[in-house]
């Protein structure tokens, strides 16, 4: 008799769960498609808009390699690399940010808040502005510096009970120190070049060139799929080390891979564009609102990062009389959100 009543109940529940799963995964796919379309639209806008607006036919002609007077230079040399670097850096920041936030189970623990971007930025500015090294060498030095910064923050925060809050506090301290290095390097540069200074202080897409597209593109092409492949393990890690181990995840192994990939993405993007404020921090929380809980955020967060960078760059270029670098816009928009998040977390009881 009990089986009689339980069976339909169980079946009903199973269908309910399955329906929920399907609904959520459909929602995730819809969000991803919309975001991908938005990224493509923003890239096109970035390429076509400017002092002169070029029609689609001209842009396509330039892409086919034909020489169109005027458009060849403006679109091919100036706007195309700018749009690509903006999109690539956004993908990198978004994916890296959400990986850190998920792994450390704290929305505040994104690489730009805890000082990893500052490490890469300090190394890059010293190499480029003071030592005048080439772009590729700078990338690798920035990568090493970013990994070293992450290791230093991790080691300094180890031991004791509440590592989460302490990690963030130490990250802020190290970030302040590295920002001092950036100021020092900018001051020591031959002339106080405003464009260069703004780039390394807030992040900017001005001066994007084809040479920097390739290294950043390769990094994103290799590391982003790696993060996507590891997203199932990442979600298991979010449940805690013990639960992840029992689900068959090699915890230490996966964690090191995830940290390295996320730090490397942050470093490559930072070495190219400078530390664009708050993109890594914002992308994850925004898409988690859109997608809902219970599914991997890596792909949607990466796309959201690209949307944020490109939108902010378009606003910075066209919304005002002066062209503002992208980092100024993301800084003004992102910081209030950080404050809001902080107040909300505190209301619910302690963020450390």
């Amino acid at each position, binding site marked *: 008799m009990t089986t009689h009543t339980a069976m339909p109940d169980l079946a009903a529940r199973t269908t309910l769960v399955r329906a929920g799963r399907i609904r959520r995964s459909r929602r995730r796919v819809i969000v991803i498609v919309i975001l991908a379309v938005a990224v493509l639209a923003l890239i096109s806008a970035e390429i076509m808009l400017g002092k002169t607006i070029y029609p689609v036919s001209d842009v396509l002609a330039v892409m086919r390699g034909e020489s169109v007077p005027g458009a060849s230079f403006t679109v091919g040399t100036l706007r195309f690399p700018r749009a690509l670097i903006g999109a690539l850096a956004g993908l990198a920041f978004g994916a890296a940010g959400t990986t850190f936030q998920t792994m450390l189970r704290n929305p505040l623990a994104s690489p730009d808040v805890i000082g990893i971007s500052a490490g890469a930025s300090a190394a890059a500015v010293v190499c480029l502005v003071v030592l005048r090294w080439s772009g590729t060498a700078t990338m690798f030095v920035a990568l090493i510096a970013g990994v070293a910064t992450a290791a230093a923050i991790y080691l300094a925060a180890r031991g004791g009970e509440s590592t989460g809050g302490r990690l963030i506090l130490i990250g802020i301290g190290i970030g302040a120190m590295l920002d001092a290095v950036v100021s*020092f390097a900018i001051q020591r540069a031959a002339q106080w070049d405003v464009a260069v200074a703004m780039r390394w202080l807030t992040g900017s897409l001005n001066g994007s060139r084809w040479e920097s597209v390739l290294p950043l593109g390769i990094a994103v092409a290799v590391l982003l799929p790696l993060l996507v492949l590891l997203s199932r393990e990442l979600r298991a890690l979010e449940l805690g080390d013990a639960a992840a181990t029992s689900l068959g995840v090699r915890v230490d192994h996966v964690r090191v891979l995830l940290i390295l990939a996320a730090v490397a993405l942050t470093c490559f993007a930072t070495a190219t564009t400078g530390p664009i404020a708050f993109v890594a921090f914002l992308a994850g929380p925004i898409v988690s609102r859109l997608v809902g809980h219970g599914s991997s955020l890596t792909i949607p967060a990466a796309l959201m990062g690209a949307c944020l960078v490109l939108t902010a760059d378009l606003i910075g270029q066209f919304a005002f009389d002066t062209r503002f670098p992208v980092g100024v816009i993301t800084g003004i928009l992102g910081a209030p959100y950080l404050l809001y998040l902080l107040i909300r977390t505190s209301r619910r009881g302690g963020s450390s």
Partner: protein
Amino acid sequence: MTSVQAKVDDRRRAPASQVGARRRALTIAGLILGVGIAILLSLSFGSRTVSMAEILEGLTSWAQGRTPAEIGAIAVQERIPRTVLAIIAGAALAVSGALMQAITRNPIADPGILGVNTGAALAVVCGIAFFGITSPYQYLWLALGGAILTAIFVYNVGSVGPGGSTPIKLALAGAATTAALSSLVSAVLLPRTAAMDTFRFWQVGGVGGADWGTMAVIAPLLVAGTLVAFICAPALNALALGDDVAVGLGVRIGRTRLLAAVAGVVLCAAVTAVAGPIAFVGLMVPHVMRMLVGPDQRWILPLSALGGAVLLTLADTIGRLIGYPGETEAGIVTAFVGAPVLIIIARRSRIKGL
């Protein structure tokens, strides 16, 4: 209580207080010596290193109000105002940090971390850009206003929710506010090249641009702020025991907090107005003093003033040496020294309160 037991108690207490007194005396002597050495170093090093005789010559001729013949002595005279500014700015920043830590009972309260400096910077930039302000006397009031508003804002955001202002909440609120305000500073400055030229010398904190006129303007504020701080010290000691105990001891906690907070913000805002944003002096020095002489604010506050003077003067001198033949601003040097101190404080297990 019998007289025998009272004697035993006395004997038990005596050595400890003697050790404390000796330690305090040593600390005071060391700090005064430190100030002297820092002044000498600051006068002698720079793009031209001078000898002892030249320092003497420079000082005596300065006192008599004449221009010395030798170039070395002239260099010494050039370094006098910045040395004086480093001393008073360092002292004021350290006292300000000590006050903020005492009021908020939060070990990482510091004008730089609370975003006060950036608030002052935004006010000054808006003044330069929108109202065409050029005189340092007007900067001062703008910086003061911006600093006070930012401090109130950050402290309130950082103390939302149960548990009040924990270090981590305060640091994050300060970092977020700093990020927003510095983006706004860039947004205001970028379209205005002229304002940028005026401001960029102010943006990194340093004492290189010292002159007697502006120092004379902030001097009364600094003296008043420091006096209020010293007068508040006993009440702050009571405050450290918790609000209830403090009320029980007859302290008016609201008035004490307000007075001490105003003094703390005025001190750091006045310094920021003339020297630009200098971070971490207010964080480091009171902690070191607390380690040396214990938690008594009546000692911490004056000793922090001495320690801050030593620190900033040395930071300025070091900045002149590592930036040779130009110079590196003292604010960069203090940030570099200060961040490790913040890490040490964060690593200490009982991070929640003082």
